[in-house]
């Protein structure tokens, strides 16, 4: 359903934009940075990319950064089906590979790394103090389902720690896990460090020892959509440059991301 709607919207936008004709960059000159670029980014990047988008518009007056956040797998599907993206930032190399294989992107580069953390409701109803508590039968645990990046990484963490966890639910994305924890319906959830930080005092984080923790790396790429003109490509490349710059890395670090 969600896919269908986004797909239809995407098609509509494509139809509209190709119908309008495109202003070509002057021949023989480097295309100037300007216009509107569309950045498709994993939902865990919501805070930092919103800030970087504003920063980019400040640095390059006259540009507009349209942000589209969602599950990396959804975004990859949208891009493969022709959604007008200029930049794609994924929460896992797997979804990036899908886009690269479909010929929509080339040479993705890792720009951030995320690690996992245990999130518990503020009152800690399950009495969760360490990772091994999640294996207790009386503790209700929510994880992401194994097909999405956060679920795969959580499975790695359990494997490293040598524990078997029987979750009560496998959620579709990390934000759903966080919600189940925040409303107190589960005793604990495995989410990204950045999610715990973004959730403020809605949840409490319990650190996972680095020796058993697992990571996922975030690749970014400029998308070679047929509808994007050379100006878009130059602007998109400049945005990717900002994300990888020292300024971009500072914003990401303050959200809890680590350097690749």
């Amino acid at each position, binding site marked *: *359903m*969600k*896919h269908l709607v986004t797909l239809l919207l995407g098609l509509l936008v494509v139809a509209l934009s190709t119908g309008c004709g495109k202003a070509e960059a002057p021949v023989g000159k480097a295309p100037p940075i300007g216009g509107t670029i569309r950045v498709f980014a994993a939902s865990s990047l919501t805070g930092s990319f919103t800030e970087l988008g504003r920063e980019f518009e400040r640095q390059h007056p006259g540009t507009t950064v349209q942000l589209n956040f969602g*599950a990396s*797998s*959804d975004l990859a*599907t949208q891009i493969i089906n022709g959604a007008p993206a200029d930049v794609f930032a994924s929460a896992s190399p797997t979804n990036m590979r899908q886009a690269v294989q479909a010929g929509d992107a080339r040479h993705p580069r890792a720009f951030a790394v995320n690690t996992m953390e245990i999130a518990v409701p503020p009152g800690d*109803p399950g009495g969760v103090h360490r990772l091994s508590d999640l294996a207790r039968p009386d503790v*209700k645990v*929510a994880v992401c*389902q194994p*097909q*999405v990046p956060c679920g795969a990484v959580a499975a790695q963490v359990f494997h490293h720690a040598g524990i078997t966890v029987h*979750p*009560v*639910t*496998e*959620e*579709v994305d990390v934000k*759903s896990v966080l919600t*189940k924890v925040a*409303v*107190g*319906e*589960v005793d604990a959830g495995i989410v990204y460090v950045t999610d715990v930080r973004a959730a403020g005092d809605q949840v409490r984080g319990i650190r996972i020892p680095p020796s058993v923790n697992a990571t996922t790396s975030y690749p970014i790429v400029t998308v070679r959509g047929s509808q994007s003109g050379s100006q878009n490509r130059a602007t998109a490349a400049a945005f990717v440059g900002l994300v990888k710059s020292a300024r971009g890395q500072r914003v990401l670090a303050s959200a809890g991301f680590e350097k690749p």
Partner: protein
Amino acid sequence: MTGAVPARPRIRRRTPWPLAAPAVLGLGLLVLPLVALLVRSPWRMLPHVLAQSTVLDALRLSLVCASIATGLALVLGVPLAWVLARSEARGVRLLRSVVTLPLVLPPVVGGVALLFAFGRTGIVGRWLDDWLGVTIPFTTAAVVLAETFVAMPFLVITVEGAFRTADQGYDEAAATLGASRLTVFRRVTLPLVRPSLGAGAVLCWARALGEFGATITFAGNLPGVTQTMPLAVYLAMQTDPAAATALSLVLLLVSVLVLVGLRDRWLSAGAR
């Protein structure tokens, strides 16, 4: 003259075009996506998809939960419809709008509302947890509850309309013959609205079968326990769109089979 009987002039009853044109467009809008699904479906994958135990679990869970939800909706919804149609108490009109609210509520919000009511920290769920040690979310019961919440209004609205338009003369006649109000309801009113009862139940069942938003929010997702077909389809979409299409096809075929079967046995018998 040859003695042949002259053909009786047939009265031509053509549908006027202001009705026919939008009707055809409407039909196209409803049917084309389904046709597209059938055309683009990976039919060869069907046996493979059906052989997976998780798929069979999801299908079984979907059918069982939708049927229990429909049963629950009949037990609770028919009396509710009767009250809404026949009661002269004040506030019934307001009640009627309240009953239809789940129809307009986005199902995901419905799921959150169910969590706030029956969740572990919910206004009712808290007592269930404290007194009985029962928690509803993330159980099959939660799936049934979510489906009933979303689908029961379809039944109530359909049956309520029938109760209101049914000729109350029969009820009165039975009452003057000495039947109690409950007997009248059981022996006279209910048989009168039987076609609507069937239609309402089918609508309710179909809506429950396709329920997604409230289920995934309130009941979560765990294969074999709360993962119904719509959830399995959505999750398959994340990694393998072809499998997702094949799964939807299974759901579509099963529901068509059930609906066609019911129509012959149940609906038309009452509709005559």
